[in-house]
């Protein structure tokens, strides 16, 4: 038994050696550029809204809504997965990525019906983000409340 465990460890080392890793630097650079561009688009929308006379409070919400809409639209058009393939985290982290993570399963599971398909599977990917996002927000909120 000990011998097989050792053989397994040896083999795992062999696999690590043979398996090419992801190109971290190139991928990070792409993520930085594309993520930055998405933020630029957000800033542009914000500036236009402010220029159009929308109040400071409302622009934040409108900007988020418009970016989510764009994310969903590009997902529906089959473009966002291509951006994601190139940009990685650069297009996953912004709110457009969140929109993509909700829209993609919604499209995928439409054939299983609107209740058990779209309804149940829509948050397949985004679910953990919502769960732990809410949890983190609560913890931070509590700390803020106590420290203040």
């Amino acid at each position: 038994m000990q011998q097989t465990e050792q053989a397994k460890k040896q083999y795992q080392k062999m696999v690590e050696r043979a398996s090419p890793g992801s190109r971290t630097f190139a991928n990070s650079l792409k993520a930085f550029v594309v993520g930055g561009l998405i933020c630029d688009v957000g800033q542009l929308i914000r500036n236009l809204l402010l220029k159009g006379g929308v109040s400071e409070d409302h622009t934040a919400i409108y900007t988020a809504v418009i970016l989510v809409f764009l994310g969903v639209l590009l997902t529906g058009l089959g473009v966002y997965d291509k951006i994601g393939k190139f940009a990685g985290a650069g297009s996953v982290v912004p709110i457009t990525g969140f929109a993509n993570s909700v829209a993609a399963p919604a499209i995928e599971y439409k054939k299983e019906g609107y209740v058990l398909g779209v309804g149940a599977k829509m948050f397949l990917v985004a679910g953990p983000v919502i769960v732990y996002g809410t949890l983190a927000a609560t913890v931070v909120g509590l700390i803020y409340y106590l420290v203040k």
Partner: protein
Amino acid sequence: MYKNAGKQTLIFGNDGDPASAPRITACASIVGPKEGEGPLGRDFDVVSQDIMFGKDTWEKAESEVARQAVEMAANKAGLRLEDIRFVLAGDLLNQCIGSSFGMRAVGRPFFGLFGACSTFGEALVLGAALVDGGWADHVISSASSHFCSAEKTFRFPLELGTQRTPTASWTVTGDGAAVVSAFGDGPRITAATAGKIVDMGIKDVSNMGAAMAPAVADTLTRHFADMNAGPDHYDVIATGDLGRIGKELLIELMFKEGYDLTKNFTDCGVEIYGPEQDAHAGGSGCACAAVTFSGHFYKKLTSGKIGKMLLVPTGALMNQTTAMQGESIPSIAHAVRIEGMQITDNR
């Protein structure tokens, strides 16, 4: 009767006479657009430009391609479906629905198989055994997979913007079907080595080649020992879907066992897509070995370009639940010895 060799090998033919062994009288291969654009594109019988195969869900598309390939194989062998005694088929979808829904319209006795991507090997071995045992004149061994239905079953929704790791593979869309017959012309299935489940502790589902390579090494070592013949005995040894990384690992593993695989060894997953096709480590899925054999190697065997080959379809036997529970990936490989037309039929 001489039907066994060593510990895990089946010998076909009357008293081990290869001339009377079950033969593959026809093969059909149907693939999707990406496979058609690959280096083997011209070898396949049908390259569908429609990845939906005229259906409205991916699951139906896979069943459709499975049905078409089985019917085409019978047709190419000059047989009616009624002449086919059994159909042995399998796929990757839950409860094997790709095959069973496809075979619903075929109306022949059906065995649904699951060996993950090794299914085509399993189907050939069992089909040859049924024919060699005298229970059937003709059977069809078939295996299918579909990129989209596999992604949906095992990974993420297609439109999700994610990156694949360099070790990930690309599920082949299509179906390869072989008619295994007791008589007629065609390369013989003269022996087969059934594989054991081997698990060397690899947990990365994006590196299935690494998980499967030790299973292939185990089966090959067993096969060479059972048959008392090394890799040199074959013109080609082709594994199913180890991909580029698994292929290198297998060469290294076999070298440690004292066998040199550098001369005549290839992998269907490496052959099916070109480097520019963005398939990362290579092709995978039940159809990978099935269509590459049915489209590519079968033609080489019948035209005499290959004399003897060892086809070794490989399977990673995890599912999404076991992967999420952090289990390692048990793997399997079955070796099928197929010999070309140089054997004269003296039956």
